[in-house]
């Protein structure tokens, strides 16, 4: 059984304070929800920096490498043809494709990386069951604590929320495991 303890506030600044407080408790897995990227939210929630940039860099380099190798392979090695008396491997002429493939790979790998890291896409999530949670994408701000261990007592969290004036809801998900 997995439980989500959910606190809802109405503005960004409040959301940050709540986040900071709940994160301090250090119980369960804390997350926050907002209609837009709220500056300072990550720090409050103590989230590490995103790894997407490294993925993009890797993708870009691979793409460029593949790009140049491809041209060398096809025009210089597999079927070498005298074209206009130019050298078989005309490196300068190979630059554009190399560059474009670099860009293409970096973009695609970036997007894939984003999806994988934030395990999207998915059509359903337990929180969607929480009443009023749909406003997380409109004008409400939520802090959630994910409790996987049924033994853990949610009370302190709920208390903390109430102290900070957040409306609390608890979502329970049955899991067969």
């Amino acid at each position, binding site marked *: 059984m997995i439980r989500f303890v959910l606190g809802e506030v109405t503005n960004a600044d409040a959301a940050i304070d709540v986040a900071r407080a709940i994160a301090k408790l250090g119980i369960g897995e804390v997350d926050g929800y907002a209609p837009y990227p709220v500056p300072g939210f990550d720090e409050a929630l103590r989230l590490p920096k995103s790894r997407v940039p490294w993925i993009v860099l890797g993708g870009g380099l691979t793409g460029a490498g593949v790009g140049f190798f491809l041209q060398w392979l096809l025009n210089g090695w597999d079927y070498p*043809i*005298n*074209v*206009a*008396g*130019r*050298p078989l491997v005309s490196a300068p002429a190979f630059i554009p494709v190399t560059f474009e493939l670099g860009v293409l790979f970096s973009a695609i790998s970036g997007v894939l990386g984003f999806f994988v890291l934030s395990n999207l896409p998915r059509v359903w999530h337990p929180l969607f069951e929480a009443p009023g949670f749909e406003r997380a994408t409109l004008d409400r701000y939520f802090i959630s604590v994910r409790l996987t261990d049924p033994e853990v007592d949610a009370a302190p969290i709920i208390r903390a929320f109430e102290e900070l004036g957040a409306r609390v809801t608890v979502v329970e998900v049955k899991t067969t495991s």
Partner: protein
Amino acid sequence: MSPMKRHLPLFGAATDRRTFLETMTAALALAGVEGCARPRGDALPFDRNPVDMTPGRPLDYATALPFFGYGVGMVGKTREGRPIKLEGNPDHPASLGAALAYQQAAIWELYDPRRAKIVLHDGQPAAFRSFLNWMHRKAADLGKTQGAGLRLLVDPTSSPSLKAMRKRIAERYPKSRAYSFSPSAPDARYRGTELLFGERHEVVYDLEAADVIVSLDADFLLTEPSSIRLMRQFADRRVPENKPNRLYVVECSLTTTGMNADHRFRARSVDIAPIGYALVAALAKATGTNELSSSFVETLRAASKTPAVERIPIEGIARDLARARGRSVVIAGLRQPPLVHAVAALMNELLGNVDKTVRYLPARLESTGAQSDELGELVRDIDRGEVEVLLIDAFDPVYSAPVDFDLGRRLGKVPHTVYTSLFADETSRNCEWFVPKAHELESWGDYQAQDGTVSIVQPLIEPLFQGRTQHELLAPLLDEGGGSARELVEGHWREEWKGRFDTEWPKALVKGAFTEQEQAERPNSSTDRLETALREAARQPAPEGIELALHLDARVLDGRYAYNPQLQELADPVTRLTWGNAALLSPATARRLEVKPGDVIVIENGDKSVQAPVYVLPGHADDSVSLSLGYGRLGAPHGTNAYLLRTSDALWFRVGVTLRKAGKREVLVTPQGHETMEGRPIALSTTLQGLEEERTHLAHMREPLPTLYQTWHYEGHRWGMMVDLSRCTGCSACVVACHVENNGPIVGPKDIARGRDMHWLRIDRYFEGTADEPSTIVQPVMCQHCEMAPCEYVCPVNATVHSDEGLNEMVYNRCVGTRYCSNNCPYKVRRFNWFDYQGRKTPVEKMRPNPEVTLRSRGVMEKCTYCVQRIERARIDARVQGRNIEDGDVKTACQQTCPASAIVFGDLNDDQSRVRDLYDDSRRYDLLHELNTRPRTGYLVRVKNPNPELA
């Protein structure tokens, strides 16, 4: 498990034949159901093994084509029994292995789906047999009356067998008459000799020994009998190493010959004669001869009193001629009256050119009378109602006869008319019987060249549409039995050769040419007849006003080639017009009449009038409008029919026509966009005097410029082509040869006007100097096969690349048609299949293409390949024999046919090759050298030889 087993499990190794066959028949029944290979089409072998023909290999036959009634020896290349290409016969003196556009294009005529296919009787389909029966009956009737009502109207021919047949007919029907008519017959020249010598002679020029040539309105390089031979001899003497000749041309409109003149003077056609007279007078003075009576010289002076004469440096020319006694020649044009020809002959006498540059031989053409007179007599006979049966085998007389004869209506008055022709045309509509004619390539026959060389015409293919030859048509008149053309021709030569036949005949067929020994005639001239004629001429006042000048067309001649799309789409060597003609005016005259190119004008000659678009031709004579014959035919309604203005009293020109604007415009259909070089160094020419310094200058126009890339090296063959602009006359034979060899499509006037010409080889014509007195230069441009080809590096799919021998290859089946290569080609020699030009062929047309060359599909680029199919064929043949390709093994189509031998192709790595000599020649330069494309095609600068005295 072998696939075989998978499909037919019945067969073990030890299946006996019978069970096999049984089960197979069963299997065959199941074939529909049984999953087997999708059909790949049928394969139909011969039912008997063909003799001496190897499928997949060409087979050549010697034959001949008529040109002005004379024979031009040809070699026809056939594949699986289909003629696919004609080339000149090297053993024939009138061809020397070369051919003009007319002969090259004959293949298209042969396979023309519009050719007449059935016998017509009063317009109704009939069997040839019924025609024969009718003929035999008629022959019987005519026999009773000694052929009183029998008339023949035929093309003047040199065919010995035909001449013999006609003679026999004349003997059998003494009262019958045979008239000959051809709108382009060279009768004036015959009658000229008659005027001077008292009898008619064949005039045969020999330019090999001629240092100075004067042409009085003669286009001897293109539209004259023996022009192929003359062009070869002329061109051989144009290269500076070869003691260049000097050509003076006085002419009305600009012709191919005029384009190649060292000194060209323009004069109305009517003014040529006086100029001729003046030249004789001047010549008499210059040579200091006493052969001419002073009175005669006076008459000459009197007859040459026209302003036109003043404009021409007669004395200078005369002196130049006099310096070249016995090494000069004066030629009068076929358009000029006999008197001018006589005068020309007289000059050759004075200059002692006879038997050196001019020879007189027995007349070859059966009829040598004035064509209009002969036709006139027929017309008279018809009006008198003397004609009962009229057999016509002449070029579309109703269309081409002088209008005042109104032949179309008159034919209606003849009880029985028989006409034969390749196409249903104006005449066929007016005749009782129409019999499809066999094309020369389907016929047996024989022709004679000017110099007497005989060639046997042997068919390369069975008649496609049951066509008949003139022999077969005349045969019923003299029932000698054996009516087939072959029997008749063979019969004739069996007579001629008596016992020698069996040895001579095969030789004649194989070699394609044999000469009967005969003595050149040395007629003695007398100027009396001339003098009287001149007095007559002197009495005429110099005619004033605008002159209408009719010309033989450089492409359709007198119209007999007008149905040939290949020639219609060929650009005129001078005007570069295609699909039609135009009214040619000099810039000055155009200005005076306030007409621009493309404006349609009405030309009125008495009560006759035609409309034609104006083409302003630099170098045309003022106060004269030129119109070429042969257009506006029934089946080829392009251009203006000039015959509507042609009257029997003035076949070629008449002063006193009126021109007025019709108030509309017409598109002049031409593939060439611009007339001048804009001062760019493209087609270079210099003079003999200026050649030396030019050589040093040219050195900078062939050395490869530095490049960042390291250049490729070509071991083995290094194909290259050299074009000698000194030799090239612009006759355009190469253009057609290339088009036929490489299956070029015909796109029609609309696309040509849009700029979608499909010729791989084009001849650019540029004017330099003033618009009134321009100098003209022509330049054949085909793919230059650049070693650093701009077209190649822009092709995204590797469809145009370089071969290991340096050919710029165009791979049609890889091309996607981005057309980027064409954009980047500085020579613009690439051609694009905008539509499916090759599709939609009738079965007959499908027989034409050269199987060695791919038919390009819609949407692909194409261009000159240096005839790579010929290279590969030569390579395979050589390698199978275990040797390498030698110089001369490969001749490109353009090189092979060039009468001027201006194009040379070969291996640049071979020091012994001819092309290498030219490659190393200091006259060589690269086109657009500064782009450093390193072309394999090189040009040799043109060298003119003007008379310093006149310069």
